Each structure stands twice: as C-alpha cells, then as structure tokens.
C-alpha cells in the first residue's frame, strides 16, 4: 500500500498527487515510469509517468488525467488514503549527455509531467534547454513555473491562443530547426499525434528526435507484450526496450490503432461510471 500525501486538482480532470514510495523515489531516473493499481482484487494495472520525486522525503509525484475507469477512480481518492500498489521505476532511463547545441524538450498536455525530470537532468549537466509547452488552452497548462526555472528558454503554445503563442508546438519546433543554432536533440512527449508530427517536423532536418511512448500494459516488466510497437519494422516492447524510441522509426499509425483496442468496451464502462457518479451525487 502506498499512501497519498497530497492531492491537487489542476484543471477539470487533471490531478497532481504526491505518493509515498521511498524506494522508487531513490532509484528513479529521468524517463522512467511506473505501474499503479488502485484496488487489489479487481483493480487494473495502469502505466503512469513520474512528474517529480524527492528521495529525501520518500515520495514521487504523478500528474494524470481522469479519462479511464482507473484514473477516474484514482481521482476520487483523497490525501491520507492509499493505493494498493505502485511498481517501479520501470523502463530504460533517458540518455542524458552533454550536447554541443541546445536540447529542445517538447511537452504536450500532461506530457509535460514526464518531461519535467528530463528537463531537470539536462539542465543539471549544463545543457542549454529550450522547452516548448503546448496545451489546448491556458487552464490546461501544467508545471509552468517549474519548467521556467529549469529551462534556458520557454515557449508556450495554446491551440486557442488564450496564453502564449496561438500555435501548434510543431511551429516553434520548425523555427528552431531552421535557426542558426539548431537543436542537438529533440525530445517530444505528449499525445501520440503530437509526437508523430514533431518527428515529421524534425525529419527533414535530420535532428535526432526521441519520443516517449505510453501504450497499453498489464505487467510493465516484459511479460505480456501488450505494449509492443513497431520500431523501424522491428517489434519492441515499450516496457523493457523503451519507453523512449527514435521518433523517426516509430510506426505511430499502428501504435494509435493499438491504443484504441478497448475503445468500445471502455466507452461502455465510462458511461457506467458517469451514471454511478450521478447516483452518488444525488444521494449526497
């Protein structure tokens, strides 16, 4: 059991939680993720990213969007309550090396959360970090202050122009690729479609671009293969070979298709969930 130490609601369905997990806090490196399970007997195991960790205090932080059955259930938990299990840190850490040019970190939506430790690690070894953050609107932007503190330059884009530039993240990314000091490396984390277009944006400039994939998983340790993706025509497991891959080699179309595997079943479940919440609200 892992205790929830703190919970904040960042927007309508985005939450930030501090969870007690001393061993993970100590071991985790930028780029790694975890598996969380709310309920032991009938609960689901879902992969989540690590937004932050404190080895001294023994906690990790997660930022998640309540979209599926389990994330909705998690969003109803309060500080002081516990979740059944947190397993991690999983996956291969990000390769953090000193670069000659700037490292451009592109985070979209809650993809900014797993980007935070990566930006932190690059900043720490003295790389020049340019962060591009994107969201649908101002209210959905997360971790702005933290990212500002760690980035040499911060570019904010919103789809509706309610804050920062009214652009997709690929627009400033393209500008940087065309500038006098093009990126030595690009890392993009966000919705699959965003990562796909970031990779397409950098491809003509031959800028090495890593993406971090968040696929369907059960165990997170290589045993089930549910997370498999096609990388340069070869099947790889996100949980043990990833989660980061060369964005120019990822078959995003196949991955997006696979992410929809349970769409029909989950839509049905979500409706049930909404009904249950309504009933609960009425009772109160």
């Amino acid at each position, binding site marked *: 059991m892992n205790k929830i130490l703190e919970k904040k609601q960042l927007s309508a369905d985005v939450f930030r939680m501090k969870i007690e997990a001393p*061993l993970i806090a100590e071991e985790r490196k930028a780029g790694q993720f975890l598996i969380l399970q709310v309920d032991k007997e009938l609960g689901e195991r879902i992969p989540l990213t690590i937004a932050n960790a404190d080895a001294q205090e023994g906690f990790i932080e997660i930022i998640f969007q309540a979209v599926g059955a389990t994330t909705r259930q998690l969003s109803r938990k309060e500080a002081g309550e516990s979740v059944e299990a947190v397993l991690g840190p999983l996956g291969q850490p990000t390769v953090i090396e000193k670069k000659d040019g700037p490292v451009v970190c592109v985070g979209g939506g809650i993809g900014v959360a797993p980007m935070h430790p990566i930006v932190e690690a690059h900043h720490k070894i003295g790389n020049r970090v340019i962060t591009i953050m994107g969201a649908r609107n101002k209210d959905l932007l997360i971790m702005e202050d933290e990212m500002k503190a760690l980035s040499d330059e911060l570019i904010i884009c919103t789809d509706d122009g309610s804050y920062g530039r009214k652009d997709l993240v690929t627009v400033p990314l393209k500008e940087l690729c065309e500038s006098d000091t093009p990126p030595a490396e690009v890392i993009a984390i966000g919705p699959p479609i965003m990562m796909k277009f970031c990779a397409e944006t950098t491809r003509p400039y031959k800028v090495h671009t890593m993406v971090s994939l968040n696929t369907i998983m059960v165990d997170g340790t290589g045993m089930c293969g549910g997370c498999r993706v096609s990388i340069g025509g070869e099947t790889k497991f996100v949980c043990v070979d990833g989660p980061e891959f060369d964005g120019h080699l990822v*078959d995003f179309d196949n991955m997006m298709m696979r992410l*929809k*595997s349970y769409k029909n079943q989950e839509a049905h479940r979500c409706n049930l969930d909404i009904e249950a919440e309504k009933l609960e609200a009425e009772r109160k």
Partner: protein
Amino acid sequence: MSNYKAPEILEKEASELWDTLKETELTPKSRRDIPQQDMPSQDPDIRRGNMEEVAVGYTAEQVFVESARCLQCKNAPCINGCPVSIDIPRFIKEAGDGKFGPAIDVIKESSMLPAICGRVCPQEKQCMEQCTLGKILKDPEKSVAIGRIERFLADWESENRPETAPELPPSNGKKVAIVGSGPSGLTAAADLRKAGFEVTIFEAFHKPGGVTVYGIPEFRLPKAIVEREVEGLMRMGVTFENNFLVGRTRKLKDLMEKDGYNAVYIASGAGLPKFMHIEGENLVGVFSANEFLTRSNLMKAYDSNAATPIYQAKRVAVFGGGNVAMDAARTAVRMGAEEVHIIYRRTEKEMPARVEEVHHAKEEGVIFNLLTSPVRILGDEDGRVRAIECLKYELGEPDESGRRKPVPIEGSEFTIDVETCIPAIGNTSNPLIKQTTPGLEFTRWGTIEVDENQKTSLDHVFAGGDISQGAATVILAMGDGRKAAAAIIEDLK
C-alpha cells in the same frame, strides 16, 4: 461427448469394485487387470460456462482401487522419473491402506507443493512414464494414476488437518533474498526458512504465486490452493515483498551490499512472449498467451466487475500445441467465444501439451487444425483482426529431434475468419536482470548460466526455474529451488 462419465457414476463403479477387491487376495496379474480410475470432472457442457475447476478429484474408494493397481516394485522405477524423488510406492501403499495422514507425510518429505503438482505435473512424462504397470500395458497414460492420488492426499490434508506452523529452528541471523514467488521461489523459501534463514521473497506482481496465479487458469488450478501454500509460508515467517521488481526497484547488488542479504536466489521465471514474425502480428486482436491469460487469471477479466478489460471475440485462433495453448483456448471458450481453433504445425502425437489437456479441450469443443500453420494475419480498415491465412503441412523425414518434420504443401493456403489470435509459442528470456546486473553470465539463449548446484557466475547468487532452464515445468522449477536452497545452506555455513 459420448465417453464422458459423470462423477456419481464413477463413484458408484469404484465403490462396487472396491467391495469385491477388498475381499480378494490380489496377485500382480489381478492388479494389472484393475481398470484405471478416471478423474471425475465437471460436465463439459456446463464447465464451458464457468471458471471452476474441471477435475473434481478422486473419492476415497477410487484412491483405494487405484492404489491396488500399484505393483509395489522393489526397484521403484517411478521414483527415478520424479524430479524431486518422492517415495511413490510408499505413499501409495499408505493411501491404499486408508492411512492418508502418513501418506501425505511421505510426499511432503520431498515435495513442498503436492496440491499444485498433483494437478499440473506432466506425470505421464515423469513418474508414470517409468511405471512398470504402464510398461506392461504399453501406455504411460495407463500407469498407476500417481498424480491423482497425490492430489487427493493434498486436498485431504487441507480439509482434515488444522493448519499449524511447523516448529522452526531459531534464526541463524542470515538473510536470503528470493527473486520471484513462483513454484521455484516458494520451494527454496520453505527449505531455507526451515534451515533457520531469514527469507524475503520479492514479487513484481501484486499477488504471489508467479505462473500459478497469472498463467495457469482457475479451472485447472484454483487460486485458493496457491494462496493456501503462500499463507503456509507466511506462517513459517517468510516475508513477501509484492510490487517489487528486483533490478529496477532495487538492484541485485544493492540487496546484497546495502540491505544485508547474504545470498540471492533468482527464480524470476519465463520472460518475453515470442511472436511468430508474420505479417499482421501487431494488429488489434493479437495477444500473446501471457497477456490473454494474465488478463483473465490474475486480473480477473472474467469477472464483469474487474477493471481490466479483455478483448471480445466470437472466433479465436490459438497458435501452438503446448499446455499454454490449451489453457488459452479453453479460457477463450469460457470468455464466450463461439468458435475456438488450435492451429498446430505438426500432428496431435507431437503436441507437447498433456494428453489430458488436449482431451479436455476437445470435450469443450475446441477445434484442432493440425498440420496447419498461420502465414499471415489479415486486418480490417480499423486495424482489427478479421481472419488468418494458413498453410497446410504434411509430415516429411524425421529431423534431428527424431520428430518427422512438417513440410508445407504448396498452394494449400486457406483462411479462417477470426477476431482474436493468440500466439502461444513460448518465451524468450526477460532482459531485466541482465540489463541491471553487471557480472552475471548468461547463455546465448539469454538464460542465466548456472552450475550443477544452481550457482551463477556471481558469489552467493543462485538461479533456477525458467530463468536458467528456459521453459520448463512446475516440478522442474521446484527441483531447482530445492537444489539451490541446499547449495545456499552449504554456501553460507
């Protein structure tokens, strides 16, 4: 199926037969004429719709009759067939005399998990293969049904003996870490704890048991049996750390250097599921048997209240002919599939699955497509599986393993419409321990290199079960656990 006999009928036949036998002076000749007792099982038409155990177990009379078949051979060839050398004739003698307590005690001298082994061991390839009676009758399937008697005794014990913690020697102050809570880890833990060590088992999943909880389905091995074994170990003072992935949550080296473990036994099990590298393998609706079984067993997707979904399909094709393939096919039947196919490249004779499992699968309506191999998986416009294309094979010349090699028949392509495909063709090694444990030597197949005492290339580090053998069986994994425990006891003297 016509040859299905209801448990009540088997019970009646056995008790009538026993009434005659118990009055008779048995000779070796008359013993061999006693018919083998069938395992009573749930009606196939009913069990297709439930997850409950298929085999319901012998009655006491069936045990008496079956035990009377044992010739009590002086040289006891059956013991050599058992990877943990259970004194089989002795426990059968006790069981036949109605002394069930002493009988189970004989088994427990050598085996930690009789309720599990009685159910899942491939006896016909081990003890029963060596049985003199089976040799006389020219069929190991007709040998004394050793596993069925073993299972009866283990179940008898759990119902009739209060669960007490055995007397243990005081702690010797030395700590052993066990990686993985499957059959191998549990066996090693018991032996080490009995020898006075402080034992902690690290398990990546949220429940202990390894393959017995994620892989083997409820209808073949009820989870309550595994839980009982785990609880027994807890009462002995073994600590379980679930949701702990050695290599990631803590490096093996840190367990020894920082956390004070004097030795480690790695029994982390089978690794990554193999795929066939055919077109369409990443379509939606293609699941490794590991994934399909883990969703239904461990994550309980068969329960409509469980949060873990399982892909809905009316028609399912399982690739492979082993026990895991049978488990996946029979699980698919229970998850509501109307048409379930086994696709296997060779003939039924070469199938690695147990005869009993193949028989059960057939009774449950699974369709066997033998001498057939999938060539590619076809998808629809949403990337979902709609059919498989297969090729017919015929048997050619024997290969180096002595099995006749299947050769494709040119132009024999045909398709089967399905919505789900489940490759069940084995596993390759999990790279996790390798990625995180420098200095540990691996074979070219990715398994951990060990000597005859399960010792690895690192001091005080041992390994066994599937991570060193490749895909093996529960009992072989247990055998490794036992050997490793003995070697650790010696090593830490």
